């Protein structure tokens, strides 16, 4: 390389994106740049998220990036005493770049495969600052950002996506078989872990490694080239189950790949409502939920920094054993270089992509931002989707398109929040997270994944420092049944109450209307009284009327009404009769805690009263 001190003499400041450090990490460029900054009294601008990015890299502990971590640390310890570092107020990468894009005396440092460059392109940023683009092999200095963008062309989607070919070789791999790495090392398929649509994952003799063997006909040229590219990227990260070796049969037929073993259960299994959370992590608090989210986000951001988009973000594509031990799995679907992520679900995908075939184009960072925002919400809300709501539109699709977010900053739409304690989770978050969610899901704004990570870290700190006054805010489900020691009878009464609420709210709208004027306190008391009174199932009449044409179904429908009565409240009551008083006490506690449910319960009680009064008259 040329004499850098001469090359950069004309600039007053460097604007450093972390991606540049990843590229030059193990060279002497680091030191040279520091020398230049010190000797020529330049400034070094970094984003407010610089530390977070550094955290993501150091957390993954990739042996190949040890130098990056060490060099960056050295670099900053040399520069801090000189007061040459300026931290931006922007946490977003784009905000940081825009802040400097038109300063002609500054030079922006970027990595060639960076997400930052992709974001600049996608947002059509124009600018006159100089840009220096680094890759492992070379460094290109462009006099302006505009010229840089005209020379550094975006990659277009691989031609292989057009190919309909698939490798069709009769190969059956099963437990006990031996496959081979490229270098010819034997890998034994010891036992099956799971079978999926694409293939089977096996334990190998090395507990740290598992093998994915594809089903016949699944390996396409695109898939295999992607795996080759991925292996060569050496993403040897602590929490990312990246393909590290390709696997073949003895006669060199491609069959699958070897990857790091993920530990624990999938996020999708554990983050699936209060029961699943309690089953998997009974001793957790909100802090553990927030930490799990931080670990997951951090690993995804690490991939972004290497120009990789996860694409098919879903809770089932990550595993967890402890909040610090999160593993990204199913990595063979990610978007790498010019090879797209061919799969995805509606729930996690930006609506603008729904009609496209995922294999036909390359996703942009902003598409990933959307998926990340859904992920952040889903983890903080223990599996709940931001657009799941009560009495909403016919499909989730419509809700997502309409930005029909049931949570609001002023609590005015609380009745739309799904039952189960999610309204209290919303209230227990930090203001910043709530505002970001509201901006994202109600207003359609996008935040970068690093902004989410920063906001989650801030929330984590608040939890650690116990900054919330209300102790309930530390529970995984605040003001909700979360104590594993909770008396079983309390659980029963809760269930029954809710059941009752549902019946009431669907069918007895008139009665509910009448109940609205009753003061809350008296209603809750009546609600308690009503727990003792049997009620008839409103569905028996509803279903009978809707099935007039079918004499027989009318018969069983009314019959079934009785069934319901006995299988509903009364079964729990009879099994717990001795605990009646205790349960009532539990119910009172529950009501005190859960105002919204209390209100509904009260409405239900009033409705039943009305029915009874009516039936007395008849």
């Amino acid at each position: 390389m040329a004499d850098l001190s001469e090359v950069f003499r004309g600039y007053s400041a460097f604007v450093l994106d972390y991606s540049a450090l990843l590229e030059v990490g193990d060279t002497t460029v680091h030191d040279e740049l520091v020398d230049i900054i010190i000797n020529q009294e330049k400034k070094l601008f970094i984003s407010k998220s610089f530390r977070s990015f550094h955290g993501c890299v150091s957390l993954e502990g990739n042996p190949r990036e040890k130098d990056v971590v060490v060099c960056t640390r050295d670099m900053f310890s040399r520069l801090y005493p000189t007061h040459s570092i300026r931290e931006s107020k922007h946490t977003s990468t784009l905000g940081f770049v825009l802040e400097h894009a038109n300063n002609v005396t500054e030079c922006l440092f970027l990595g060639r495969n960076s997400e930052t460059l992709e974001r600049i392109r996608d947002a059509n940023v124009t600018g006159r600052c100089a840009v220096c683009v680094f890759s492992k092999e070379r460094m290109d200095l462009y006099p302006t950002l505009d010229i840089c963008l005209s020379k550094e062309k975006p990659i277009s989607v691989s031609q292989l996506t057009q190919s309909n070919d698939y490798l069709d070789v009769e190969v059956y791999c099963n437990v006990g078989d031996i496959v081979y790495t490229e270098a010819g090392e034997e890998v034994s398929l010891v036992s099956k872990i799971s079978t999926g649509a694409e293939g089977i994952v096996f334990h190998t003799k090395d507990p740290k490694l598992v093998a994915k063997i594809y089903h016949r006909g699944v390996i396409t040229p695109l898939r295999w080239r992607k795996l080759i590219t991925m292996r060569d990227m050496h993403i040897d990260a602590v929490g990312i189950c990246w393909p590290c070796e390709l696997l073949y049969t003895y006669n060199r037929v491609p069959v699958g790949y070897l990857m790091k073993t993920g530990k624990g259960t999938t996020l999708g299994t554990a983050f699936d409502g209060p029961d699943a959370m309690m089953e998997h992590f009974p001793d957790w608090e909100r802090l553990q939920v927030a930490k799990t989210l931080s670990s997951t986000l951090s690993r995804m951001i690490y991939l972004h920094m290497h120009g990789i988009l996860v694409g098919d973000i879903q809770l089932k594509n990550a595993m967890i054993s402890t909040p610090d031990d999160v593993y990204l799995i199913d990595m063979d679907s990610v978007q790498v270089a010019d090879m797209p992520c061919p799969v995805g679900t509606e729930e996690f995908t930006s609506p603008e992509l729904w009609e496209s075939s995922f294999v036909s184009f390359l996703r942009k960072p902003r598409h990933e931002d959307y998926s990340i925002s859904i992920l952040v919400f889903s983890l903080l809300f223990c599996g709940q989707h931001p657009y799941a709501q009560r009495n909403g539109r016919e499909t989730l699709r419509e809700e997502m398109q309409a930005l029909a977010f049931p949570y609001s900053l002023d609590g005015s739409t609380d009745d739309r929040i799904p039952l189960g304690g999610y309204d209290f989770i919303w209230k227990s978050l930090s203001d910043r997270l709530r505002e970001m969610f509201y901006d994202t899901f109600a207003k359609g704004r996008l935040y970068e994944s690093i902004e989410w990570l920063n906001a989650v870290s801030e929330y984590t700190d608040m939890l650690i420092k116990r900054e919330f006054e209300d102790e309930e805010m530390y529970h995984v489900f605040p003001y909700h049944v979360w104590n594993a020691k909770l008396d079983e009878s309390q659980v029963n009464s809760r269930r029954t109450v809710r059941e009752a609420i549902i019946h009431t709210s669907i069918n007895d709208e008139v009665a509910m209307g009448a109940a609205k004027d009753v003061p809350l306190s008296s209603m809750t008391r009546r609600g308690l009284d009503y727990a003792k009174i049997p009620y008839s199932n409103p569905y028996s009449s509803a279903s009978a009327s809707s099935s007039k044409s079918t004499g027989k179904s009318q018969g069983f429908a009314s019959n079934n009404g009785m069934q319901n009565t006995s299988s509903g409240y009364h079964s729990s009551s009879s099994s717990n009769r001795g605990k009646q008083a205790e349960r009532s006490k539990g119910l009172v506690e529950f009501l005190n805690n859960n105002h919204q449910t209390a209100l509904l319960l009260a409405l239900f009680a009033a409705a039943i009263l009305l029915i009874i009064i009516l039936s007395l008259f008849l």
Partner: protein
Amino acid sequence: MAKKVGNISEKDFGSSTKRRLPICFCLDVSGSMSGNPINELNDGLQSFFSSIRENDETRSAADICIVTFGGSVDIFLPFGKITKSQTIPRISATTSLTPIGEGILTALELLNVRKTGYKELGIKYYQPWLVVITDGAPQGENSMENMEKAIQAVTELESKDRLVVFNIGVGNNVDFSLLKRLSDKRAEPISIQTAQFGKLFAFLGSSSSSVVTSGMKDDALYDLEQHNEGTSVAMDDFFRTIEECK
């Protein structure tokens, strides 16, 4: 066996946050199904259930109900969460007639009530599946009238994308022209022989898993031919294609 219509309780819905896929099987258990056909049907159902049960995703997402018709219409299995250990009893055939229309109307009612429950609780859901399996034609009092009502109700829901219909005929005595009218989207009813029950249920199992885990679109469910739209190539060509694209 408990008969239930519209029993909405949190217990039945579970606290899972997964997007639910309600599937109502509407099964013919009339006299003609007795013997081997009902055995094959049971085997198919059992393996369908175990495939749903063993998969973490489908276990909490798939919401299954079974209505049988043969003489009377019965709710053999009401909607409810599938647990890891749950098994379903085997269905037995009756000796009587085939009230298909009535069975379908009952199924629609159950699906509707289930959906109402989702909406009330704020559970997200996929549009329901109605799986009708018959080996004959409508029989019994008012059977044709009910069948017409069923056809009208089903096709109306289907046209609004509110229902995915699997109209399946078993054997050679099916009134296919009538069965075909149950779905406007499916070019022809799915026609199987008794021995193919296993395959049918495997298809239904993998399709439900594809919907739940990889976001397969409903339209794909009307295209039974899982055509592997590709060209099978041998090793040499395979590696050449990769090389050429580098």
